[in-house]
């Protein structure tokens, strides 16, 4: 279909739509109200809920740091707490940046550049989060074992078979997980980079 033919079809659609204007005042007001409520449900609540959980666990670890006693338990404890505190903050910041673009002041091109940049950052953060979350599984194991169960996982566990199974399984899972994360986010990041290159090269 050539551009001229496209224009013909387009004006025909415009004509048809013109004839069937049916949107009511009530419907327009309902749309704005419903969307406002939905936005809060969709983004803010799950994020806040996740952040509360992460922060609670981090606080629990930090309050019980003395119970960890040895350096090889304290170190994973501190690292776990850092991950649990930092990741939600970065994630919230990133989402806030993406949703904070001014639709009125920015032109289409500016919005596309800003959004693509923020999306790229967000995807990179998501990719890093997946790796860190997996690391967290291993880090938090000796910490919870000591704080909740009172057992030192490195010296106080007599039966090592569960660990012998868990560790290789975990590593295998991690390899597949990392490959998936790389493929999934890597493609999106590449696409974002190509859009940015195209837009920024022109001006």
């Amino acid at each position: 279909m050539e551009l001229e033919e496209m224009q013909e079809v387009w004006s025909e659609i415009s004509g048809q739509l013109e004839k069937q204007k049916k949107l009511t005042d009530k419907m327009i007001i309902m749309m704005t109200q419903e969307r406002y409520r939905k936005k809060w449900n969709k983004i803010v609540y799950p994020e806040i809920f996740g952040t509360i959980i992460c922060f609670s666990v981090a606080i629990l670890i930090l309050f019980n740091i003395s119970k960890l006693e040895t350096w090889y338990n304290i170190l994973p404890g501190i690292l776990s707490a850092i991950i649990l505190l930092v990741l939600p903050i970065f994630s919230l910041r990133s989402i806030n940046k993406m949703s904070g673009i001014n639709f009125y002041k920015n032109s289409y091109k500016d919005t596309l550049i800003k959004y693509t940049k923020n999306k790229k950052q967000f995807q990179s953060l998501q990719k890093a989060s997946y790796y860190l979350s997996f690391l967290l599984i291993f880090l938090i194991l000796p910490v919870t074992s000591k704080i909740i169960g009172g057992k030192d996982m490195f010296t106080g566990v007599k039966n090592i078979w569960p660990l012998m199974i868990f560790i290789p399984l975990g590593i295998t899972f991690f390899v597949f997980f990392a490959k998936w994360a790389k493929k999934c986010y890597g493609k999106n990041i590449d696409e974002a980079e190509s859009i940015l290159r195209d837009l920024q090269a022109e001006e």
Partner: protein
Amino acid sequence: MSKEEEFTRIIKKNEGVIFKITTVYTDRSEDQQDLYQEIVYQLWKAYDSFRGDSKISTWMYRVALNTAITRLKKEKRMGNKVGIDQVVLKQTENYNIEFEEKLRILYAHIKMLSDLEKGLILLLLEGKKYEEIALITGLTPSNVGTRVSRIKQKLKTQIIKE
């Protein structure tokens, strides 16, 4: 006329434009309804900042297109949808098969373009001049011209592939 009345009047006047934008930027009717509501909501939010220094249509296209490209595509769908599918999203009953086929091909061609190109072709099909397209998109008029030529070339290549 109150602010709400003025706003609803503008939306009603331009509902066809919003419909066409949502069709170009979505693949499923559920997403289309979602985007339609999002655009109306963003227009309402931006309405106070509209000072009349540009044409209302320029302002509307800018907000609507910006909303379309920044919508999170994989958002979980929650909440109720206002049943606009029963009204504006329904094409007229008088469509003939031939026109429907042309329409399908038209949208298929547009959907193969990049987000920026989709916006440009949409404005071009709406009959906007390069200067107004430049005002909405933030590109220079000559840049718009270059990109439009590229789009034409792309469309030709698509036809050859078919």
